[in-house]
């Protein structure tokens, strides 16, 4: 029986080694688009952490888990999992990584591997669960109307945005949420999730964004 232990810190130079190995390559300068840079950054940082983990660098798995968990959590929620199911599925996904991650040839693919694994897991869970078999996620499954609790944490501007998002079709809401969180969404899995042809995701994304923007603009002018 093999136990995988997170390597304990080495007496000399362990800390520096961790930081060096998990350090991110220089940011590509000159990009004015904040979001894309962040997304690319996550993929690169996670890839570096995963490579360091495979090389036995102490602390690398911590870096990877902390970096990617929020993305996986929101992806799981957008797949229609309850918070409890999402917690479990994110944990299972990392266990799968520890068990099967050696099959990932390019460490930069680790974020994609994790999101695809999580989606498959979420799908399997949904199809195995008798009470929810073949159901589309219901309104209750997805975070929607800002409750009093939510409203307190949102700025006025965010509350307006949230209200407009909630007027979009469910398909638009889910698509935008996935695109917002997933730096490089897996289009085939996304198409299956949203039950739409893979070829229409790009155009639909454009339409949903345009619709949302026109609502926001209409409000500004009124």
């Amino acid at each position, binding site marked *: *029986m*093999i*136990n*995988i*232990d*997170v390597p304990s810190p080495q007496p000399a130079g362990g800390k520096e080694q961790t930081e060096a190995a998990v350090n991110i390559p220089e940011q590509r300068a000159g990009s*004015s*688009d*904040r*979001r*894309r840079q962040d997304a690319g950054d996550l993929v690169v940082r996670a890839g570096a952490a995963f490579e360091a983990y495979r090389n036995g660098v102490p602390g690398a*798995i911590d870096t990877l*888990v902390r970096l990617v*968990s929020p993305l996986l*959590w*929101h992806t799981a*929620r957008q797949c229609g999992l309850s*918070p*409890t*199911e999402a*917690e*479990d599925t994110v*944990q*299972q996904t*990392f*266990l799968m990584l*520890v*068990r099967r991650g050696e099959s990932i040839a390019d460490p930069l693919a680790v974020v994609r591997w994790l999101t695809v694994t999580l989606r498959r897991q979420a799908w399997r*869970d949904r199809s195995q669960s008798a009470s929810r078999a073949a159901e589309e996620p219901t309104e209750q499954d997805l*975070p929607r109307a*800002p409750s009093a609790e*939510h409203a307190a944490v*949102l700025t006025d*501007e*965010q509350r307006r*945005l*949230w209200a407009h*998002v909630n007027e979009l079709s469910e398909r638009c809401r889910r698509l*935008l*949420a996935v*695109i*917002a*969180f997933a730096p490089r969404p897996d*289009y*085939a899995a996304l*198409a*299956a999730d*949203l*039950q*739409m*042809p*893979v*070829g*229409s*995701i*790009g*155009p639909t994304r*454009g339409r949903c*964004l345009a619709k949302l*923007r026109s609502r926001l603009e209409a409000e500004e002018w009124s």
Partner: protein
Amino acid sequence: MKIQPGSGGFGPEDGPVPGEDQPLDRDDLALLADLVDVYNAVDPMPEILPDVILFALEAHDVDAELARLVDSELELVGAGGTRAVEHARSVTFSSDHLTVMLAVHPNVDGTVRLDGWAAPGGNLRAEIRTGETTLDTLCDADGRFVFDEVPTGAAQLTLHPTEDSDPEIRVPVVTPAVHL
């Protein structure tokens, strides 16, 4: 506009997706970034989740059978003794070979008592790992087991086969880590 349901089976080998390479413009990206902020505010990941995951990975036996959480009254949100819990909460796990239920009762000293039941769990050895300690006990012939005093925090249960347990259970069954 009507969107046809996908027929499935699409893969990267089917060629480029129309619109996939169309760059989102700056306004799109700013809007999506705002949306991320809103989702993080209204549906935040439980802050403690990465710690629980790391706890599970710490001593992960790759040969063990993984049980999944099927039902839980435990909540990661607000966990950590911020609120007194008066009643027992239960959590159920299930794997290919085993179903395990745990009832979590708070003790007055701040620890918890775990009443467990595994099926078919007769004579399995139950082991609970927490950050501070690892405890173990034998299940009775009906698969029941008790841990009287378990420190709160992240915990993970493993059920090990013994010579007297169900021969179908050949490898240890490990539950996901939970926050007690």
